[in-house]
């Protein structure tokens, strides 16, 4: 029998041992040998393969769907259309208040399509190829409608996407902390920026989405072998839609080829698979095609910032800002409107702004729905803060390094409460910046400018200061909709000692390459006194393991806190019981027992006064007759880690929205060819501070990955739509992700400011906060300073945009206005 214990206390930082060492990753052997098990490796007899029929239009009425020709094709098992979905399921739960709450979102389009690539029907056949051929025989008649591809236009409601909602606005509200009007009135300079635009992209995973779904008629239960990265929440969406209990949905994952948030909103596809598996009485499998992944899976939030006003003192201190933000969530608010509040975790960025007003509106457009994307919602806001700092510095003639150091939250202010009640737990941003500057040779900047100029190039220097807020408080959703019954966070793990002395760990998290098996083994081995090799961590996730909690998953930069917090808690329970058992067997006081090297032994006792873990496991599991009736050790413990947040203040829109704040300070040098606008990164440094680094190499890998995503987003990756809502970059030919040759040599550094609130002193850090986007925008603006000083107004700056800024700097300069007293 396992036991469950819940506690909210923070422990102490572990000293010495496996934690902090870059031990070989447990997962790598199977992965590099091609022995990983991804959902697409699962085979079942009689499987039908599914292909989705998708809309070529961004916005159209569905006049008719005729599947007869597809059904007549030999080898086709069956089809499903939106009308069937509307009969057999309910619309997905919406998190917004009205009008967003009134949107009806089904697994397939019902009556109307709202983005190019939206699934309108699905065909199941003997092979993937046949299903694709058969899907082409499905005749859909459409009546095109005007497409909305701009959130500001959409907000006018001249064309409405969701008639039942009556408006394209999903959510809107004003966040007002401090007194920004007073700050602006008392400022020596007010810098106004008319418009900044954070573009639409996605951190495309190597593995596309998909699942194999089996339905067991006898129990009414579905098993989904899949790559959903947040199955607990996936089930919360799916079960009510399917009109079943959560227990009827079993999610199983092992290896996942990257997720980055894009695999959180897979529920519409999975519901269709569940319906087909039940309808056809056979397992069904769907592997998303790459073009479909680009066209119709999840994109990151696009956001436009309007009418920014920044209050600046004569000495360069920035005391506040106000802004209108218009967020484009695409056709359906699937994870939204959470993006309307998640940014508030990092409201002042790395800075000491105390007076901030954000007027936030989110609207639907005829583009692919958004979902969390590495750095979700905070990245957009942090980009704004970094743009503001650089534009203010440039317009007022301030040094970008000095102005940052003047305005950064200081190490001695930690833990620091932001104007909206979040608590930055630890960090030393100025020190991290110094390290970054040293890594790129900032002291030789003038020399390098001259050298570049001699070669006809423009050299630019940029900084990206960013935060990776981790361990989400779901209570922040109540700041959007007080009726929502979500708050806090939790994660579970089980640790047991088995009959032959095996230490077995089961995680609730859903790893996608972050090395959970490795780091969990480090934590357990340090606590129970054995080597990490002796700790077996079950790969992947199975919701029937009973080791998961409501918010289980890998997202929001939290495994090092929640996942390892649960592992630590369970391992400590096991350790205590092992000591108790050894004390009983060895007839010694518990204080005299130590666990080390795979033995429970009496400290300083004779050599024979030692029990190998195998003996403890065997006693409890197979040889327990001699144990007294009132002593019943299980050596099998489940622990749920729950961080403490307290309740949020709905009226003031304040509270602890997240637990930890890792920081990343990026600095880079770029060279721009003034003839072509081509940008080359010639030096790059990223300094990470994620508290205690459990496994430094894994931390470094995350820094590299997040930086690569940011570089791609800053220079190439852009989901561009034409006026009709057709995606013009639906594949890797047009949507260029960084290749090895695009990556600059990265220099990395670190600072370790242990978190006082996390179980191991560690912080989640996998998302990177878009530091690279901020730094590259900063560097491009600096490089172009001698060419009319254009303002970098967009987060994506491919050559054509840089070239345009070179041609007409004044057009961008018109975006900025400075009033000095």
């Amino acid at each position, binding site marked *: 029998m396992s036991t469950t214990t819940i506690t909210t206390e923070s422990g102490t930082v572990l000293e010495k041992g496996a934690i902090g060492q870059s031990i070989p990753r447990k997962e790598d052997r199977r992965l590099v040998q091609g022995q990983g098990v991804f959902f697409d490796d699962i085979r079942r007899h009689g499987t039908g393969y599914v292909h989705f029929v998708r809309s*070529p*239009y*961004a916005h159209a009425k569905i006049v008719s769907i005729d599947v007869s020709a597809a059904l007549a094709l030999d080898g086709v098992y069956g089809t499903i259309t939106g009308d069937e979905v509307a009969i057999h399921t309910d619309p997905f739960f919406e998190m917004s208040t009205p009008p967003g709450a009134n949107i009806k979102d089904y697994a397939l389009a019902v009556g109307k399509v709202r983005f*190019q*690539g939206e699934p309108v029907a699905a065909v199941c056949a003997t092979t993937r190829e046949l299903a694709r051929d058969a899907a*082409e025989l499905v005749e859909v008649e*459409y009546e*095109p409608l005007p497409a909305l591809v701009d959130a500001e236009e959409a907000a006018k409601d001249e064309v409405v996407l969701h008639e039942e909602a009556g408006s394209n606005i999903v959510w809107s509200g004003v966040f007002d902390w401090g007194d920004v009007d007073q700050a602006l009135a008392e400022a020596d300079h007010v810098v106004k920026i008319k418009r900044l635009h954070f573009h639409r992209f996605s951190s495309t995973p190597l593995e596309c989405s998909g699942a194999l779904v089996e339905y067991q008629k006898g129990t009414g239960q579905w098993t989904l072998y899949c790559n959903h990265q947040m199955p607990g929440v996936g089930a919360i969406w799916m079960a009510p839609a399917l009109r079943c209990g959560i227990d009827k949905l079993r999610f199983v994952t092992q290896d996942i080829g990257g997720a980055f948030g894009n695999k959180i909103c897979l529920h519409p596809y999975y519901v269709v698979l569940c319906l087909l598996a039940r309808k056809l009485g056979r397992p069904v499998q769907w592997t998303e095609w790459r*073009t479909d992944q680009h*066209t119709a899976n999840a994109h990151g939030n696009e956001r436009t910032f309007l009418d920014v006003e920044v209050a600046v003192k004569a000495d360069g201190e920035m005391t506040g800002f106000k802004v209108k933000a218009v967020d484009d969530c695409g056709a359906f608010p699937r994870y939204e409107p959470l993006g309307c509040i998640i940014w508030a975790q990092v409201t002042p960025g790395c800075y000491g702004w105390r007076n901030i007003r954000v007027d936030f509106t989110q609207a639907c457009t005829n583009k692919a729905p958004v979902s969390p994307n590495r750095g979700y919602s905070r990245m957009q806001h942090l980009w704004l803060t970094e743009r503001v700092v650089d534009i203010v510095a440039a317009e007022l003639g301030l040094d970008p390094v000095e102005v940052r150091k003047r305005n950064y939250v200081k190490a001695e202010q930690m833990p620091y409460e932001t104007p909206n009640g979040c608590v930055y737990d630890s960090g030393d941003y100025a020190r991290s910046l110094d390290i970054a500057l040293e890594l790129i040779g900032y002291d030789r900047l003038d020399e390098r400018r001259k050298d570049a100029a001699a070669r006809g190039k423009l050299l630019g220097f940029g900084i990206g200061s960013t935060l990776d807020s981790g361990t989400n408080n779901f209570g922040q959703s109540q700041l959007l909709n007080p009726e929502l019954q979500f708050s806090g966070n939790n994660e579970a793990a089980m640790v047991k000692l088995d009959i032959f002395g095996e230490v077995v760990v089961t995680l609730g998290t859903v790893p996608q390459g972050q090395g959970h098996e490795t780091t969990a083994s480090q934590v357990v081995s340090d606590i129970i006194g054995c080597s990490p090799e002796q700790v077996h961590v079950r790969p992947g996730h199975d919701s029937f393991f009973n080791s998961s909690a409501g918010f289980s998953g890998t997202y929001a930069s939290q495994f090092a806190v929640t996942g390892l917090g649960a592992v630590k808690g369970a391992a400590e329970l096991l350790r205590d019981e092992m000591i108790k058992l050894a004390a009983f067997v060895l007839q010694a006081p518990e204080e005299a027992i130590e666990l080390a090297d795979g033995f429970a032994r009496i400290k300083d006792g004779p050599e024979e006064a030692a029990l190998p873990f195998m003996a403890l496991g065997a006693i409890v599991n197979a040889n327990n007759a001699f144990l007294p009736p009132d002593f019943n050790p299980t050596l099998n413990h489940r622990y749920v880690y729950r961080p403490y947040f307290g309740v949020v203040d709905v009226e003031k829109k304040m509270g602890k929205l997240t637990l930890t704040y890792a920081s990343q300070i990026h600095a880079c040098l770029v060279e721009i060819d003034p003839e072509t606008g081509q940008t080359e990164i010639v030096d790059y440094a990223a300094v990470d501070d994620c508290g205690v680094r459990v496994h430094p190499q894994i931390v470094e890998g995350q820094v590299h990955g997040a930086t690569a995503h940011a570089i791609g987003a800053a220079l190439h990756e852009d989901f561009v739509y*034409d006026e*009709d809502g*057709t*995606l*013009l*970059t*639906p*594949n890797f030919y*047009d949507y260029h992700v960084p290749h090895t040759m695009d990556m600059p040599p990265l220099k990395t550094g670190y600072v370790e400011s242990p978190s006082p609130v996390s179980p191991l002193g560690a912080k989640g850090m996998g998302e990177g906060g878009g530091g690279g986007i901020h730094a590259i925008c900063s560097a491009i603006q600096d490089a172009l300073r001698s060419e009319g000083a254009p303002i970098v107004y967009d987060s994506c700056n491919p050559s054509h945009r840089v070239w345009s800024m070179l041609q007409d700097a004044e057009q961008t300069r018109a975006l900025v206005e400075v009033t000095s007293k």
Partner: protein
Amino acid sequence: MRVEGVKELSGGREVVWEVLNDPASMAKLMPGVESFEVTDDTHWSANVKVPLGLGGLKMKMNFEKTEEREPEFARLVAKGTGVGAIMNMDTAFTLTEAGSGTSMKWEADVKIAGPVGSMGQRVLQPIINQQVENVLTALEKQVSEAAAQ
């Protein structure tokens, strides 16, 4: 995508009108026509193969003549469906006498939706230009032949 132009033809306006409004002649003008069927005076359909990137895009096209002012103006709407693409075309021409010949002012608004539309954006303009050129050359030839008869 919008394309337009003016073409000077050697035949008289009636001759040009005749060629442009005879479905059989029209079929010969269109590129990649594999079959052509006349439903009634104002409705035709065709199976065409549009050269697009690698290989051709097979489409079933339905044409409807929506406006006609003989012998100077006609408007034609075409809707095509194919694998991964839906094409809508709205085209019109105006004929004016120019000496012994005819001046044809033409315009077309072509929209391709769907994945092919996405992928074809880079190549669509030159392909459309080329196809228009082919149509106009074929038209000139037919007008010359008809005028000679």
